[in-house]
Structures are given as structure tokens and as C-alpha cells.
């Protein structure tokens, strides 16, 4: 009898014990989802459960635990949770390639290595070479990077060489991170998700508040349309607004051949244009696009004498040097203009606003940004994912942004962070402008593999239009014809390609 009682008790207790263990482990995931940094990872949970016994009851418990982990996922909402999850990989090494202009801060790298014991080797590649370098790296099968930072427009070309992160995102509850609308398309190709948004790029219109006042404007109510911007720029241009004998430049346009398509795209967005129609027929020479280019070309009249060769780096130099009234530039510049007192002559004398509206309304161009992606050849897929989440998490993003690295946060919570609001941009309203612009109507960059070719042709013809070699309409007609040829060779008109998602639907 004693023996029977013991036997019965033992079975019942064992099942009960295992069920409780399963529930407890499931709860720990739930706690982790609520931000508890001490929660364990799903893999360790599963491993712990499956290594107890081989009985049927154990298997059932293990299944319960696994299901619980999968359904609820493991939260990586806090930096501590991420670092904790990566600790099990201590002693290993990760190789990261980054866009040269935005490598992680040394302090960020050190923190990662100290907390996890995982070495992070970083290779910085100049931004204008990153496409060439990575495509050669991928196609040659060199496979020397675990993590790569990829600009959004390059995902179409790189996707075949990158891991789809959908499963990791589910397991580690990436949907907890509330991204700003403008950055939600980063790293997405078809139904796949190939990148963790890392650097949220957006353009803002920078203007000199003191100059605006001097020419009859209201610094608190900057121009709302492109036409108004031109009018004020015209009033500023050539005037001695600082009283030091230097003639003011109304507007600094980015017209040098490499990258000028970005300068055009901001106008294309608000003038109501689009890249293609649903069947991939170029609409780059539509009346809206031609009007956008005519406007962009007109800005040369209120720009510096050498407008046609003004490039990305020149813009900051001109604006921070205090010689320009208006300029459109990435949000990063605001932090430098306000807090870099050595190089900036305009701290406290400028404002930022969302890019103005055009005839097509207020639609913001999303220039893409940088996401962190994991290469298919990486032997440490989960570790690489955890590292990407660490580099892109709110705490790291805020630290990097306020340090002026050029890496801007992609999540809403960072923009709502008071510390960030005080130290980023102009330290006043930049965060508000960023959120307002990021949640409005958006015009996206292209992500097809042929993007680099299309961009190169567009750059060339825009440059011809700016320098007066070709009239705007003829230049864009030529772009359309070239684009048709490039896409034709790539088989876009063969019928089996998915339709283009038209962005300028009325």
C-alpha cells in the first residue's frame, strides 16, 4: 500500500511539478515582455526543459514551454535585456561593416564587449563605395562579415545574400519597438524583413531665424511652401544681412553630380510626382516631375555662384559658416549647428522645419537610412541579431545621436525622451519636427536591385539640367528612356514582375 501510494503520488507530483515549471517559465517570458531584464531567452528555456528527463511527461512540458516562449516571445526592449541574452556567446567574435560616416561610438563598442565578452570588429566603408564593396564581397563569397549596415535602397540588390529576420523578430518581439512611420519600410523586401532599422534619415529645411526676420518674415512661422521659400531666399540673396560686408546666399542647393537625385526627390515628392506607374513605366518625366526639376534648377539663381558643384559636405560648411539663409539637409546637421561651437557660427540663430509643401501637397521624401542586416554566411546568426538589436536600441540610439555621430534614432520613444530632446538638433523643437515629418505622408526611395543604375542615370541628367547643357524636360525624357532600357534588360516588362506600388495616388 505504501509502495502504491508512493508510486501514485510520485507520478501525479511529477506531472504537477512539470506543469508548474512550464507555467513559471512561460511567465518569465511574460515578465520579460514587460521589460524585466532578468528574463531568460527562449532557447535557454527550451534547452533547460528538454534536458531534464526523457519521459513523455517531460516532452509534454517541454512542448508547453516552447509554445509559451514562441507565443509570447522574449522581450529585448531594454539594453540590459539584450546584453544579458548575448552573454552566452562570450568569447566569440563578430565582424561588422558600417557606413563610414556613421560607425558606432567607441564607447558603445566597449560597452558591448565588456557586458557580453563578445568581440566586435568594425570595418568602416566610405558611403559612396559601400554598394560596390559589399556587392563584390557578397558575389565573391568572401563571407567575412556577420553584420552589415545597409542603406535602405540597397536591400533589393543585397537581399539574396542576407538572412530573413522575420523569425528572429517574432521570437524576440521586435514589434515592441514602435518605429516612426517614415522608417518602417527599412529593410523590407516583399514579405521578408532583412534589417533592423539603425539610422533614421530625414531631410529638414534649415533656415536662419535672424535673417528671416530681417527680410520681413516671422521666425516663428517659417515659409510653408516652396514658393514662399524661394521668395524669402530671393530677398536674402546678395544682401549684407550680418553687417560685415559679406553677401548672403539665399539657398544652398546640392547640385554636384553624385547624389543630386536626393535634392531633386524632395521636390518630386511635394510636387506630386512618382518614379513609375504600376507597370514600371517611368513617370520621371511627368509634368509634376518636370515642374519639380524646373523649381530645383531655379534655386541656382538664389544660390552660390558655384551651385552646380555644391555637394553634400559643402552644404554643412556653408550653413555652419553662416553664409546661407536656407538649406535642406539631414537632421544630423542641426545638432552640429547648435552644439558644435567650434565650427558653427550660427548656434542659436537658426531654426528647422519639415520640408515645405509643393503643388502636390505636403508629402515628405523618405531618403532611406541605414539598417543592420545579417549575412547568410554568418555562423553566429542569433548573436549577430542580438548585436544589431543592441546597436539599434533606444539607449544606444540616443547616446549616439546626441554625440553627433550622424546616427539618428528610428523609434518613437527615443524622440519622446526628454534627454534626447534637450541635446539633439537645435535642442528645442527639432525632435518635434522630426516626429511631425516622420508621421506624415511619405514618398519612399526605390528598393529594387537596379536602383543604383537608375540613380546614376538620374544624377547625370539632373547635373546636365543644372549646368544648362540640357533643358529640364529633355533631361527627364532622356532619364525615362534610359530607365526603360535598364528595366527592360532586367526583365521588368516580361510580365512576371510584381507591380510597382504607386505612391502618388490621389
Amino acid at each position, binding site marked *: 500500500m505504501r509502495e502504491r501510494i508512493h508510486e501514485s503520488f510520485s507520478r501525479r507530483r511529477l506531472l504537477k511539478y512539470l506543469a508548474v515549471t512550464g507555467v513559471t517559465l512561460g511567465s518569465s517570458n511574460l515578465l520579460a515582455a514587460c521589460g524585466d531584464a532578468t528574463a531568460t531567452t527562449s532557447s535557454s528555456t527550451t534547452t533547460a526543459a528538454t534536458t531534464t528527463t526523457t519521459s513523455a511527461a517531460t516532452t509534454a512540458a517541454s512542448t508547453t514551454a516552447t509554445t509559451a516562449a514562441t507565443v509570447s516571445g522574449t522581450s529585448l526592449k531594454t539594453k540590459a535585456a539584450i546584453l544579458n541574452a548575448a552573454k552566452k556567446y562570450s568569447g566569440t567574435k563578430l565582424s561588422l561593416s558600417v557606413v563610414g560616416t556613421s560607425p558606432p561610438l567607441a564607447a558603445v563598442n566597449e560597452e558591448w564587449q565588456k557586458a557580453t565578452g563578445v568581440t566586435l570588429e568594425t570595418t568602416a566603408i566610405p558611403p559612396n563605395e559601400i554598394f560596390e564593396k559589399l556587392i563584390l564581397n557578397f558575389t565573391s563569397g568572401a563571407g567575412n562579415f556577420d553584420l552589415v549596415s545597409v542603406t535602405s535602397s540597397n536591400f533589393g*540588390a543585397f537581399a539574396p545574400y542576407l538572412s530573413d529576420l522575420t523569425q528572429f523578430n517574432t521570437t524576440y518581439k521586435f514589434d515592441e519597438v514602435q518605429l516612426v512611420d517614415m522608417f518602417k519600410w527599412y529593410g523590407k523586401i516583399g514579405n521578408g524583413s532583412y534589417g533592423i532599422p539603425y539610422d533614421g534619415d530625414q531631410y529638414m529645411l534649415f533656415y536662419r531665424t535672424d535673417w528671416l526676420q530681417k527680410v520681413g518674415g516671422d521666425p516663428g512661422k517659417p515659409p510653408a511652401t516652396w514658393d514662399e521659400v524661394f521668395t524669402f531666399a530671393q530677398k536674402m540673396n546678395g544682401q549684407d544681412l550680418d553687417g560685415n560686408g559679406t553677401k548672403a546666399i539665399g539657398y544652398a542647393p546640392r547640385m*554636384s*553630380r553624385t547624389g543630386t537625385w536626393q535634392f531633386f526627390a524632395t521636390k518630386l515628392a511635394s510636387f506630386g510626382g512618382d518614379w513609375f506607374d504600376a507597370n514600371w513605366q517611368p513617370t520621371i518625366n511627368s509634368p509634376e516631375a518636370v515642374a519639380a526639376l524646373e523649381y530645383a534648377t531655379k534655386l541656382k539663381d538664389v544660390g552660390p555662384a558655384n551651385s*552646380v558643384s555644391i555637394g553634400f559636405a559643402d552644404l554643412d560648411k556653408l550653413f555652419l559658416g553662416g553664409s546661407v539663409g536656407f538649406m535642406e539637409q539631414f537632421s544630423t546637421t542641426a545638432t552640429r549647428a547648435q552644439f558644435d561651437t567650434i565650427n558653427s557660427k550660427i548656434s542659436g540663430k537658426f531654426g528647422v522645419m519639415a520640408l515645405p509643401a509643393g503643388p502636390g501637397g505636403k508629402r515628405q521624401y523618405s531618403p532611406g537610412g541605414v539598417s543592420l542586416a545579417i549575412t547568410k554566411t554568418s555562423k553566429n546568426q542569433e548573436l549577430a541579431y542580438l548585436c544589431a538589436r543592441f546597436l539599434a536600441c533606444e539607449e544606444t540610439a540616443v547616446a549616439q545621436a546626441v554625440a553627433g555621430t550622424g546616427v539618428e534614432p528610428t523609434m518613437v520613444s527615443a524622440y519622446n525622451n526628454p534627454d534626447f530632446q534637450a541635446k539633439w538638433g537645435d535642442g528645442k523643437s527639432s525632435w518635434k519636427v522630426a516626429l511631425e515629418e516622420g508621421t506624415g505622408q511619405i514618398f519612399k526611395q526605390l528598393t529594387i536591385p537596379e536602383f543604383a543604375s537608375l540613380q*546614376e542615370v538620374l544624377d*547625370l541628367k539632373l547635373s*546636365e539640367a543644372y*549646368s544648362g547643357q540640357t533643358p529640364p524636360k529633355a533631361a527627364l525624357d532622356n532619364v525615362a528612356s534610359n530607365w526603360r532600357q535598364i528595366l527592360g534588360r*532586367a*526583365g521588368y516588362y516580361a510580365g512576371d514582375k510584381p507591380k510597382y506600388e504607386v505612391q502618388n495616388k490621389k
Partner: protein
Amino acid sequence: MKRSGFKLRYSPHGGLEGWLLLSPLLIILVVLALIPVLYALGLSFFEYNVLRPLQNRFTGLENFGLMLEDERFHTALFNSFRYVLVCVPLSVVLGVGAALLLDHELPGMRLFRALAITPMMVMPLVVGLNFRMLFDYQDGIINWFLSRLLWFPRVRWLDTPEGAFWATVIMELWCTIPFVMMLTLSGLKSLPTEVFDAAKVDGAGKFQMFFYLTLPLLMPVLTIIILLRTLTTFKLFDQIYALTEGGPGSATETVAYYAYVLGFKRWDMGYAALISYVLVFIIALVCLLLLKLLQAERKVI
């Protein structure tokens, strides 16, 4: 009976042993030169894009047809010829002139000669980047010199098609005049002095001696210089890449630069290979023509 020009006539000493000793070099040449050249030739008959590895296909002469209709290629070809026609004569004339000036044994002349050839030692990309700063509209030293010292208006060197063209010409001349000067100088040093002594005795003036003696005697060296300069000017790429990136628009885009764009911006390797082959063919043809002309000139002299 005339023997075929293609028959392999070379036979190393020592028969099989000779071939064996030559084999490392031959293997290196085959692997590093012959195979890539033939591979590129084959590639030019394909639509071969690195970004679409599964869609690559044999297209025969389709790329050639594309090239004939490609306006951008025509512009690039025009630009390449324009650079050759402007840069080669200018560099030869100025280089020979500089060599004549330096062909005197004065104190410190050796040091001066050594300094004069330093541009040859600078990497073309570095040259391009430096000239970019020099030609800067606002802060460049060239415009500073023009506007502050000579009271000329500032020149928009890199903003207008003509300005960019002449900026690249000036940069190219800075790089290549020392090369012409050095070769000419060595040619001048090897000229027989007796001929000049005899001419002096006959009462020939300096100009007569130069045009009737120095120049004809230098013709073999000048032929080599002109051929090499033509060849390198057709291949003009690095400096343009660093200085103007082919712009503004396509004002300074050469065939070599366009081939780079096709290969490494568009990844259209098939078409890029064809353009490169066409460039090689054009260079060979122009050089052959020049050689014939210069040889004829030598016979006349």
C-alpha cells in the same frame, strides 16, 4: 612563299628544358593576362549583370547595337578625342620646351631637374583631389590668385562644361609635361655633338639648328612620346574620377570613365567589356595611324 604571320616562330634554347624554365612565366601570363582578356572578350557577347546572376544570357551582337545607339557613349567618345587632340600636342610642345630650357649645365640644374619630375611620382587620384581644392570657386588658390593678384573675375572651373574641361586639361598637363620633358631631355643628351658643331661652323642660327637638326634627330624619341601620350590620354580616368566625376553633366566623361560606370555602378559587365574592347581597338587604330604619319614625316625630313 610568304609565311603566315601567326605561326609561332620562337623556340627557346634547350628545347623542352627551355620551355620548362619558361613555364612559370608563361603560366603567370596566361592566368593574369590571357584568360581575363579572353574572358572579357567572351563577356562582351553576353548580357551579364552581377545583380541578376540568373538572367545572364548570350546576346551575340546586341551589346554592339546598343553601343551604336548609345548617346552617352558617343558623348564620351567625343570627349576622349577632345582630350587627346588638346592634351597631347600641348604636353608635347610644353614638355619639349621645358626640356630645351633644362638642357643647360648651370649650377643647381640637377636638383631643378629632379624637382621638375616630381608630379610624375604623385598618384593620379591624389592629383585629382588636390586640384579639386585648387580649383574651388570660393577657397581655391587658383581663383584667389586670379582675383586678388591679377584682378580677374573668379572662374567657375568645376561648374560649367567648358570650365571643367579646361580644369582637367590643366591638371593633365601638370601631370604629363614632366614625363615628356624627361624623355626629351634624355633624347637631347644622346644627340651627336659633331653635327651641331658643323652647323655652327656653317653659320646656322639657333632656330635653324632646332628645326633642321634637333627636331629631326629627336623624331624617334618624339614618336614614342606622342604614342605613349595618346595612349594614356585615351585611358584618362583617375584624375577625372577625383576632380569632376565626369561632370558637370557629361562634360568631362571619357570612354574609360563610362566603362567604369557601366561596370561598377550599373554592374552591366557585358556592355562594359564591349566598351573597353572598343576603346582598346580605337587606341590601337589611332596609334597605328599616328605611327604611319610620323614615319612618313621622318622620311620626308
